[in-house]
């Protein structure tokens, strides 16, 4: 694995229950197997579900970094939810940031109860586009459904990241890791979700 940016800072952001931590675990494990120094910081607070969940994954060839990246230093943002992607850009984005975003909203309880409004998704995506180097919109929930369960949208997104060329991750190593992690729970569906992600990013054009 060779890296241009060192440390390479990746943020995975979404909502509790979207498989955020599993995704960061797969990415980090693949990077360790590729010989890199890896630090992962997870922010998940008190809620099991419903709250903001964010993982910082920091890769380096040189040294161990702390679990939290400094503000404005994300190279890649993997957004499992559109407004969470934008929220993360507010803190960690910059003009060189590459964003991969699942456009499917997960509505906050504040929106459902009528105390806040959820913005039009296309406007959120345009705002993201204005702030980053590139943004790929990935219909990850739909692709996960094709693989057997909408919950595997995180694996679809990992597939997109692995084949995006934005990181030094190797597809063969990530595949190995997925096989190992899901060994007891039939890895086939997850491998299918991963492959759908890989295929999607190869044909997907940035906004």
């Amino acid at each position, binding site marked *: 694995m060779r890296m241009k940016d060192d440390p390479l800072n990746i943020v995975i952001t979404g909502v509790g*229950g979207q498989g955020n931590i599993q995704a*960061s*675990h797969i990415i*980090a*494990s693949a990077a*360790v197997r590729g010989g890199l*120094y*890896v*630090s*992962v*910081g*997870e*922010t*998940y*607070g*008190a*809620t*099991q*579900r*419903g*709250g*903001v969940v964010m993982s910082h994954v920091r890769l380096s060839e040189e040294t*161990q*970094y*702390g*679990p*939290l*990246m*400094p*503000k*404005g*230093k994300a190279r890649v943002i993997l957004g499992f939810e559109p*407004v969470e992607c*934008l*929220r993360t*850009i*507010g803190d960690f984005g*910059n*003009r060189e940031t590459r964003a991969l975003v699942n456009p*499917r909203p*997960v*509505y*906050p*309880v*504040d*929106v*459902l*109860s*009528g*105390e*806040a409004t959820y*913005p039009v998704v296309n*406007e*959120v995506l345009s*705002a993201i586009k*204005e*702030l980053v180097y590139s943004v790929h919109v990935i219909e990850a*929930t739909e692709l996960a459904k094709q693989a057997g369960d*909408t919950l595997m*949208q995180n694996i679809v997104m990992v597939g997109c990241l692995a084949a995006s060329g934005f990181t030094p991750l190797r597809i063969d190593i990530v595949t190995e890791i997925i096989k190992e992690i899901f060994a007891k729970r039939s890895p086939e569906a997850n491998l299918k979700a991963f492959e759908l992600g890989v295929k999607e990013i190869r044909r997907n054009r940035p906004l």
Partner: protein
Amino acid sequence: MSQVEVDEPGKRILLMGNEAIARGALEAGVSFCSGYPGNPASEILETLAKVAKKFNLHVQWSVNEIVALEAAGAAAAAGLRALTAMKNLGANVCADFLMTVNLSGTRGGFVMVTGDDPSAHSTTTELDTRNYARFADIPLLEPATIQEAKDMTKLAFDLSEELGVVCMLRTVTRLSHSRGVATLGSMPRQKRVAEFSSQDMWTSGSSAIACMFHGLLHEKMARAQQKFDESEFNHYVGRENTDFIIITSGTGWLYSLEAVKLLGLQDNVGILKLGTTWPLPKKLVAKHLKHAKEVLFVEEIDPFLEQNVKMLTAELLAEGIRPIRFYGKKSNHIRSEFGPGTGEMDVDTVIRALVEIRNLEYFPREKEYSEKALKAVGSYVPTRSMGLCAGCPHRASFWAINKALKWDGRDGIVTADIGCYSLGLLPTGFSVEKTLHCMGAGIGTANGFGNLKSFGLDKPVMAISGDSTFYHACIPALINAKWNRANVLFVVLDNNTTAMTGHQPHPGSGIDAFGSSCAKIPIESVCEGIGVPVRVADPFDVDKAVQSLYEMLQTEGTKAIIFRHECPLTEARKKEKRPTVHVDQDRCIGDECGCVRFCTRVFKCPANIWDSVKGKAKIDEAVCTGCGLCADLCPAGAIILEEVK
């Protein structure tokens, strides 16, 4: 196979901080492990429980932290190596025992791991448990990396055994819940035998004996200090004799390194990283204070190092040390939006302190970009409040409590406790709860509120607790309520697990830390034993639940009701497929119904969403657990539950 059991010394693996602590304990030859679940420390015991059979360990979830510490202390007194792990507030619970076992000492290595939570991500306070190490005067270790989490756990056992005193290892959320690479060490091959004979004595004594042990403790700590002055976990990076140094511990180490690098200050700022922080390694610190004109402290939560180093500096005055300007929490340079000594540490906090002290400039991105990004967030991003999960039985319980209080009409008071159901303070639980403190404080404070009638406060009082919390801290308070005639309805929300901390079993689950079946201590039996009238109800049977609550509120004295329904997250794991729920598009007539969007606006389950195009209710299939409560409550009967065959 779990990663932590790999027996390949020298192998590099990815570990979570808590797994690294567990691995360090295994490498140290731990035999006895106990604890009570609590973020961010829960995974230490969980990891050890998974490998307990292979390594012949005793691992127990104890009923609370003091019992955990006492049990581990006894194992260590019998010569075994023993560990107990807890969250920050757990240290308070076991403080009584800690303040005596520090004197009585230990034969086998005895390690107490405390998990602090700067920024209070998942607890009710930013307590700094390092103060307990100073308070009890026991050795304190603060790992800074995943590798150190493993290696310093092993050191803690060795040190404890050598000095004969319990040793504290302090971790924080950003270490416990982060992942990184650790190089594995070797596993011990020899098993220990527990011994305690009639010739043995294990006590802190009293009067002269207690004072003698106190003196012995000070001698042990003097030896600890000598060892700490030589410890490999304390080191200095930077130019020797630089006049600006950072003194840091724990997570502050990597943040300080990165901040100094980003500001290009490697030649001007030295960093003294301390892994052993109580007793302070005085000789080592003094050596670096002698070349410093300015010192910045970077540490999580309290100004602990800051105070201890300042005291040392006062001692060094007689040796002619030159004046030093100190920066940190006391000077307001290390602060969060809530002020100094609050919030967690990060690279940006260290950068800001250095920028302010040294009059530097640092812009992570152009000003124009930052303004644009913040404006976009302000315009589009809604707040995302904490909420109960889809299908949570607590939502049903809070619904029933809210309704029963309205029927009762006397403006009843609800005191709450620690667990998922603490969210009853928020709109997700219809804001029924009015007080929240520590484990057991719900029924504890109800002993006061329920005894104020003669002072003019004549309202019904409900105390809420969860199932695990009931066993942990509520039983003495319930006995007290009965004994002192408190007028309280005690509501126990029993979802058959310790849900908040990741679904650990408790004494009512009928399973132990290994997942094996064991004795079950039903909550209702405990209540009956105390003589408190008790009912059991399913909160999803809402009408009956409301009726029961209302009836019990009309009676005097102490009484209890248990709302029993399994947590949907543990239930879902047992099922191959979830039942599905959908909205009958013909029956839902949207805003014409008159229900004011009951499912989304009133009931507030995150799986109930609104289709603004059709103007009708909808189910988010990616979130719904299929509990079907909304189907029972929908006034139009438009929500349909389909059981899976």
